[in-house]
C-alpha cells in the first residue's frame, strides 16, 4: 500500500485508533444521542422536580421536602422493601438457571423440536398476566383450587398442598413470564456464539455440563449479566401479581405501595416519585456492579475469521433436555393458556356447575365493540412504529456506547437505564407534563399515536440498548476495520457488516418492543385519548368492570396478533439461515 493511501486511511480512521473519531456519521450519531438524552432526561427531570411540589390541586405551586419525608417516614416501607428484594432474589435465581438452560437447549444443542420449544417460550412472554393469575388461582387456591382438590382426594390429604396466596405462589405465578423474558434476552447472544469454542472444549475431553458451565456461560457473561440486571430490575418493579396474590396474604411490596399513592384521590405523585428513588438507587448499584464485573475483559465471539453456529451433539441427553423443556412448557405455559382460552368461552370463568356454562357471547361482544377496529389500527401503528424506530435508535445508541470514544458515553449509558427506574404510570405522567409544558410544536403531538410511540420507545430503551450492547460487544471491531481499510465509508460498513451480524438480535429487540407496545397499559395511560386508544386500553375498560371473560378474549386476541408477528420475525430469521447455508 502506498504511503499516501495509508496516511489517508489513518486519517479517516481517526489516527491509528481502532475506534473511529468525528466524521459526518458521528455528527448524525451525536444528534441521535442528543435527542435521546433530551427525551429521557427532560421528562424525568420534570418528574423529579415536581416530586418536591407540595401544593394541593388548585393552589399556587409550593415547594418542600414533605412528600419525600412522608414517603420515607412510613413504617411499612422497610417491610415492603424487604419483601420486594426477597421476591426479586428468589425469582432471579430460579429464572436465571432456567433461562440459561433453555437458551442453551434451543441454540447450542441438537435437542428435538427446538423450534417448537423456542416458540412456546416466546408464548410465555406475551400471555396477559392478570387473566393468567386468575387461572392459577382457579387451579391452586387452597380452598377450591382444582389441582389442590384433586390431590387432596387422590392422596387423602387433610389440607391443601399448595397455596397460591404466598411468597412461593407469587414466585410460581411469575415463573412463565420471567423465564421467558430472560430466555428472550439471552437467546440472541447464545445464537451468535462461535461453536468452535465449544467444539475445542469437547475435543479436549470436557463433558456437556462442563462445556456449558466452563465455556458457554463465561463467554456469554455480558449478555447473561445484562439480562440478569434487567430481569432483577423488572422483578423489583413488578406489581400486578403481588397486588392480587400478595395483599390477601399480607405480603406488601414497594410497587404496591407506589400503586396506592398513585391511586389516591387526588394522587400523591410526589410521594410516589420519592419512593421510586429506591429503584433508581438499585439501578445505579447494578450498573456499577456490571461495570465492575465486566471491566477490562474481552467478550468477542464473532471475529474476522468467520464463525460457526452449528449445534453440539449431546447424544442421548437430548431426550432428557427435551423432556424437561416439554414439562416446563406444559405446566407453566400451556396449562394456564388453555385455562385462559377456556375462560373466554365460559359464561362465568371457572364455574362449571352452571346450567349453561359455555358461551361464545364474550367473543361476539368483544369484536362488536364500536371502538374495536380503531383500537386495533392504533395498536398496529403503535407496535410497528415503536419496534422499527426503537430498534434503529437503540442500535445507534448501543454503537455509540460500545464502539466510540466520545466523552459522555457512560453518561448516556446510565441515562438509557433511567426509564426502568420508574413505574410506567410515572413515565406516562412525566411525558404528559413534558409535552404539554413545551412549545406549540411539541404540543401538537398530544392526542396522537406518535406520542404513544415515543413513550414506548423510551420505556423499552433499557432493554433494547442493553441487549444490543451485548450483541455489539460480541462482534469484533476488525470486521468493520477491514471494511474501512477496503475503502468503504463507515455507513456502508455499519449497514453491510454489523447490522446483518446483529440481525437476530435486532429482530428479537423489535419483537420485544412490539410486544411491549401491544400489551402496555400504564406507560400510555395519560397520553392516549379517545382518538388514540389501543387494544390494551380497551382491555382495561373490560377489567375496570371486572369482565374478566371479555378481557381474556382481548388477551387471547393480542396473543394471536403477537404470535403472527413472531412467525414473521422467525421467517425473517430463517431466511437469514438459508442465505448463510
Amino acid at each position, binding site marked *: 500500500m502506498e504511503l499516501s493511501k495509508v496516511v489517508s486511511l489513518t486519517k479517516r480512521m481517526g489516527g491509528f485508533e481502532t475506534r473511529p473519531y468525528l466524521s459526518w456519521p458521528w455528527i448524525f450519531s451525536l444528534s441521535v444521542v442528543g435527542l435521546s438524552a433530551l427525551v429521557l432526561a427532560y421528562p424525568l427531570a420534570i418528574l423529579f422536580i415536581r416530586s418536591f411540589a407540595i401544593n394541593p390541586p388548585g393552589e399556587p405551586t409550593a415547594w418542600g421536602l414533605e412528600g419525600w419525608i412522608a414517603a420515607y417516614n412510613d413504617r411499612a416501607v422497610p417491610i415492603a422493601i424487604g419483601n420486594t428484594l426477597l421476591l426479586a432474589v428468589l425469582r432471579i435465581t430460579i429464572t436465571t438457571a432456567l433461562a440459561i438452560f433453555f437458551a442453551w437447549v434451543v441454540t447450542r444443542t441438537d435437542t428435538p423440536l427446538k423450534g417448537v420449544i423456542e416458540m412456546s417460550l416466546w408464548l410465555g412472554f406475551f400471555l396477559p398476566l392478570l387473566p393468567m393469575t386468575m387461572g392459577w388461582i382457579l387451579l391452586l387456591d387452597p380452598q377450591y383450587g382444582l389441582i389442590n382438590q384433586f390431590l387432596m382426594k387422590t392422596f387423602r390429604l387433610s389440607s391443601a398442598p399448595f397455596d397460591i396466596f404466598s411468597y412461593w405462589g407469587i414466585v410460581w405465578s411469575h415463573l412463565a413470564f420471567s423465564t421467558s423474558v430472560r430466555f428472550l434476552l439471552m437467546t440472541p447472544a447464545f445464537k451468535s456464539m462461535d461453536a468452535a469454542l465449544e467444539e475445542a472444549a469437547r475435543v479436549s475431553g470436557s463433558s456437556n455440563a462442563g462445556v456449558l458451565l466452563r465455556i458457554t456461560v463465561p463467554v456469554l457473561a455480558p449478555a447473561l449479566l445484562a439480562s440478569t440486571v434487567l430481569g432483577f430490575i423488572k422483578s423489583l418493579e413488578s406489581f400486578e401479581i403481588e397486588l392480587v396474590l400478595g395483599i390477601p396474604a399480607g405480603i406488601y411490596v414497594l410497587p404496591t405501595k407506589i400503586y396506592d399513592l398513585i391511586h389516591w384521590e387526588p394522587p400523591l405523585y410526589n410521594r410516589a416519585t420519592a419512593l421510586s428513588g429506591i429503584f433508581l438507587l438499585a439501578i445505579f448499584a447494578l450498573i456499577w456492579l456490571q461495570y465492575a464485573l465486566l471491566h477490562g475483559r474481552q467478550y468477542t465471539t464473532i471475529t474476522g475469521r468467520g464463525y460457526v453456529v452449528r449445534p453440539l451433539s449431546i447424544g442421548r441427553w437430548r431426550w432428557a433436555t427435551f423432556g424437561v423443556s416439554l414439562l416446563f412448557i406444559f405446566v407453566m405455559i400451556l396449562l394456564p393458556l388453555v385455562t385462559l382460552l377456556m375462560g373466554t368461552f365460559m359464561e362465568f370463568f371457572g364455574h362449571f356447575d352452571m346450567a349453561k356454562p359455555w358461551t361464545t357471547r364474550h367473543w361476539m361482544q368483544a369484536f362488536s365493540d364500536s371502538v374495536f377496529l380503531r383500537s386495533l389500527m392504533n395498536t398496529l401503528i403503535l407496535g410497528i412504529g415503536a419496534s422499527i424506530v426503537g430498534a434503529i435508535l437503540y442500535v445507534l445508541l448501543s454503537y455509540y456506547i460500545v464502539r466510540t470514544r466520545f466523552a459522555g458515553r457512560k453518561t448516556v449509558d446510565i441515562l438509557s437505564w433511567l426509564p426502568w427506574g420508574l413505574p410506567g404510570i410515572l413515565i406516562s405522567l412525566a411525558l404528559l407534563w413534558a409535552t404539554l409544558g413545551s412549545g406549540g410544536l411539541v404540543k401538537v403531538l398530544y392526542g396522537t399515536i406518535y406520542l404513544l410511540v415515543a413513550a414506548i420507545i423510551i420505556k423499552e430503551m433499557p432493554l433494547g440498548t442493553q441487549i444490543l450492547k451485548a450483541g455489539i460487544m460480541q462482534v469484533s471491531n476488525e470486521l468493520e476495520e477491514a471494511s474501512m481499510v477496503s475503502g468503504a465509508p463507515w455507513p456502508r460498513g455499519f449497514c453491510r457488516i454489523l447490522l446483518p451480524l446483529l440481525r437476530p438480535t435486532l429482530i428479537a429487540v423489535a419483537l420485544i418492543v412490539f410486544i411491549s407496545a401491544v400489551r402496555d397499559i400504564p406507560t400510555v395511560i*395519560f397520553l392516549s385519548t379517545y382518538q388514540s386508544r389501543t387494544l390494551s386500553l380497551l382491555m382495561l375498560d373490560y377489567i375496570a368492570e371486572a369482565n374478566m371473560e371479555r378481557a381474556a378474549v382481548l388477551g387471547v386476541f393480542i396473543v394471536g396478533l403477537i404470535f403472527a408477528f413472531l412467525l414473521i420475525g422467525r421467517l425473517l430469521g430463517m431466511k437469514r439461515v438459508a442465505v448463510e447455508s
Partner: protein
Amino acid sequence: MQRFRRKWFLSSVTCGLLSLVLAHLASGQTKPSSQEQWEKTLAEARKEGKVVVYGPPGATVREALTQGFEKAFPGISVGFLGGSGAAIGPRVVTERRGGQYLVDVFVGSSVMLMNTLRPEKALDPLDRVLIFPEAQDPKAWRTKRLEFSDKERRWVVMMTGYVHLEVAVNSNLVRPDDIRAFKDLLDPKWKGKIALTDPRIIGPGQVGFTFLYHSKKLGPDYIRALGKQEITPLRDHRLLAEGVGRGKYPIGLFPQPTQIQQVISAGLPVHPIGKLAEGSALATGFGSLGLANRAPHPNAATVYINWLLTKDGQTLLARGLAYASRRLDVPTDHLPSFMVPEANESYFEMDHEETLKRRDAAVALAREIFGG
C-alpha cells in the same frame, strides 16, 4: 294614622297583585324563551358537531354514554375517554396548565370533581346550562330537586344514588339472620372469617369505612374492634365475591354489588345484606356530573348535560354503571332490590362536600389497622 294604614294596606295589596300579574306574565314569557333557547343551543351544537366527555372506566358505560346520545342527536358525535379519577384528574389538570382545553363534560366520582377539578377551577357552574325543563323537573327527582355534592348547589350534580352494599354472606356457612347489625361482626366466632374490600384505596371498601367512621352508633372505636377480627383486605372485587361464594370467606364486608350479583347468577350460595341496623349509606359512585370550564364545544356540552339528566339519559347511565338513578321515573329492573333506595328512608350521603372532606380520617384509620 288609620287612613295612612289603610292606604298603605291598599297600596301593598295592589303592589302584590301587580307583582303576581307581572310574575305570571314573565313566566308566560319564560316558557317560549326556554324553548327558543334550547332550539338555538341545539342548532349551534349541531354546528359544533362534537362533544368531548371524560367519563368512568368500562365498556358498557362508554357505549351507553356515546351511542344513546348520538342516536338522540344525530350530527353530534361523542368523543369519550374513560378512566378512574386517579387517571382523569391529573390529566385534566396538566392539560389545562398546558393551555389545552379539550373536554366539555365530566362524568365521574364526586371525589374527583370536588377534590381535584373544582379547586383547579376546571368546572363551570351548571345552573346556567340547565335549560331543558325535563332535566330539572322537581317531581322527577328523589328529593324533589336536583341533588348537588357542593353546598352552593351549582357545580357537581349527583345523578345516581344506590344503597351501598354492606355485607354478603355464604348462606351455607352463615345464616343471614346472624348478621343483623354491624356489631354482630364483632362476635368472636367470625374471627378470621371476614374479607373486606380494601378500604385504603378508592372503592366500596373506602366508602364503607367512611360510613362506619362517621356513624354516631359505630365510629372509630368500632372500626378498631373490627380490626381485631383478623379481617382479610382484598383489592380484586371478583376475588372477594368468589371467595364468599366458594366459602373461603364466609362473610364479605363492603363487596362490589355487581360482582355479588354475578356470583349469585352463577349459582353460588351468596346472600347479600343491603342494610344493617345501624343504617346505610347512599353512594353516587361514578355518577356525578360537571361542566368543564372553557369547554371547546359549549353548546354541544349544554345539549349533552340536559340530555343526560332526562329520563332517557339517566336510564342509559344507570344501566351502563349498574347503579340506581336519583330520578324516580328511571327503571331499576336491572338492579337487585338491595341497591335501590327506599322512598322514605334516610341514608347517609357519601358524596356530600362535608363527607368528602372527612374521608381522609377514615382512610388513615384503615392504614393504621391494615398497614400501608
